[in-house]
């Protein structure tokens, strides 16, 4: 039957925690109650928790780098990436060059209602077109709205943090996140402005 020590120790633990929560400050200010600092909870809608930089929150698409190679779509375990693309002919980069054949992404959708956030797509991408962003506030009242199209995915690029430095002893190279500006939305339009063509005039439709 109960003896005192264990029971009293338990009361001590809860009391100590309450004191630490209520009066977290040290020194002379110990007497000022500041539960806001003492508690470990985050008052979510009022303040936002910052996940680590590597957190897999949402996938961002750098469309300029995407060649619609389908690797991500094919390696996705959930079949939640939908890509469509077509080829265009673009003028050479400099005088004397040959006409380039460029892949243009028509559709790049990720269905976050299906996504399991495994990151395989980001990993297999050979052209640095997909990145993880720690952003997490994109819940939707309608499940269909969780399908992010390429514009929405490109918008996430702004929230992609720089890659972290490694601990000493590592042989990994720190990668770079490509610069991303407002011009980088819909690179197909930029290509078109440069004179790229997808169908010969007169041959279309």
């Amino acid at each position, binding site marked *: *039957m*109960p003896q005192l020590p*264990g029971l009293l120790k338990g009361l001590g633990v809860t009391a100590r925690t309450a004191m630490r929560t209520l009066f977290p400050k040290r020194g002379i200010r110990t007497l000022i109650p500041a539960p806001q600092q003492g508690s470990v909870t985050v008052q979510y809608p009022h303040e936002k928790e910052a996940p680590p930089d590597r*957190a897999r929150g949402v996938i961002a698409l750098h469309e300029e780098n995407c060649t619609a190679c389908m690797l991500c779509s094919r390696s996705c*375990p959930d079949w939640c990436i939908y890509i469509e693309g077509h080829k265009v002919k673009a003028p050479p980069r400099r005088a004397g060059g040959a006409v380039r054949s460029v892949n243009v992404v028509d559709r790049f959708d990720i269905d976050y209602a299906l996504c399991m956030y495994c990151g*395989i797509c980001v990993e297999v991408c050979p052209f640095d077109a997909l990145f993880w962003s720690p952003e997490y506030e994109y819940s939707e009242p309608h499940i269909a709205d969780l399908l992010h199209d390429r514009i929405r995915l490109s918008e996430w690029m702004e929230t992609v943090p720089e890659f972290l430095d*490694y601990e000493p002893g590592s042989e*990994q190279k720190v990668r770079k996140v490509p610069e991303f500006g407002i011009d980088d939305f819909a690179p197909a339009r930029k290509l078109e402005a440069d004179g790229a063509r997808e169908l010969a005039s007169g041959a279309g439709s």
Partner: protein
Amino acid sequence: MSPPPTASALREQQAYVAAQAADARVNVELDTGDMTLNIGPQHPATHGTLRIACQLDGEQVISAEPLMGYMHRGYEKLCEVRTYPQCTTLINRIDWLGSFANEVPFILAAEQLMGVEAPPRAQWIRTILFELSRIANVSLFLGDMGVQVGALTPVFFAFRDRERVLNQIEEVTGGRFHPNFDRIGGLKDDIPRGWIAETHAVMAKMRGFCDEMEDLLMGNEIFQTRCRSVGVIPGDVALSYGLSGANLRASGVDWDLRRDANPGLAWDQVDWRVWTHPDGDSFARYWVRLQETREATKIVDQLLDGIPSGPIMAKVPRIIKVPAGEAYVSTENPLGEMGYYVVSKGGLGPFRVKIRTPSFSNISVVPWVMRGTYVPDIITILGSLYFILGDIDR
């Protein structure tokens, strides 16, 4: 260090059984009918959707039969239609509280079939993350056990301090619960700068958490009254049912795969010990887990100081094809022995994956151990056996 537990358990258990038999006789004389009580599928003590159909005589359990499958996701079938890298995504979700530890035996099995060995740095980081997920997983148990026996506060402490460990895991892997960080031949990435120091600090905090749990819960006489001599599983029964992990060690069987069948991780590089307890009751299981959490923090501390430098990925082809063969690798996961029997026919994905999950075997002892206990004991025993539903149902 905690007081050494004394093993008067058997004598107490006999007295307990005798008292119960006396109760039963009284009940027969009064002809009180049996009552079927369904605990679950939605019940706070079943951590998910386990259902236990109990036949009760008053508050005494005549029989208890776990009925499961409410969360069966068919991972063994799903793995057959996935490639090896895709499988780890699923495997993360088996025991969702210690996800990283789930990946390791599967990846090791695949590596064994391919004849690849991860570089030492990867092995060490693997071991660190493995032990971190053990701490994250078991620390939740340490608090949750309090809720099972009616104490509200410990579980909040557990959530509070587990979050620190999860943060460390997330800082490396990018996922709090589903790291998906282990790759055939190594790891996805290296650890970020400053992480080692932070983790040392977190480990110190976790040791503080263990002390707190010892004062708040384990040392509490009411807790001991509730747990001692409740749900006694002798060692031979535990072996026969295939119990593993702390449940087995709490029954006095000195068996830890980290020491006894180390499949190549860095556990043999550091100094640690296996804790056992002779009693085999609910308290013993709690005690062993508490000691193991402490031990794990020490393992992590030692490993952090000795991470070798070098690459984190062995040379593997970009498209992973595993040669034909079979391999069974099991590791000492937070819940017990988790093993993968991987059969390959040389394709991109496994031909058959048998997932040996600890909780499935651990819970299979329930009908045996519940007989003759009281309704509150059901909860104590379930809590102390510690299962994750995803780990039972897969």
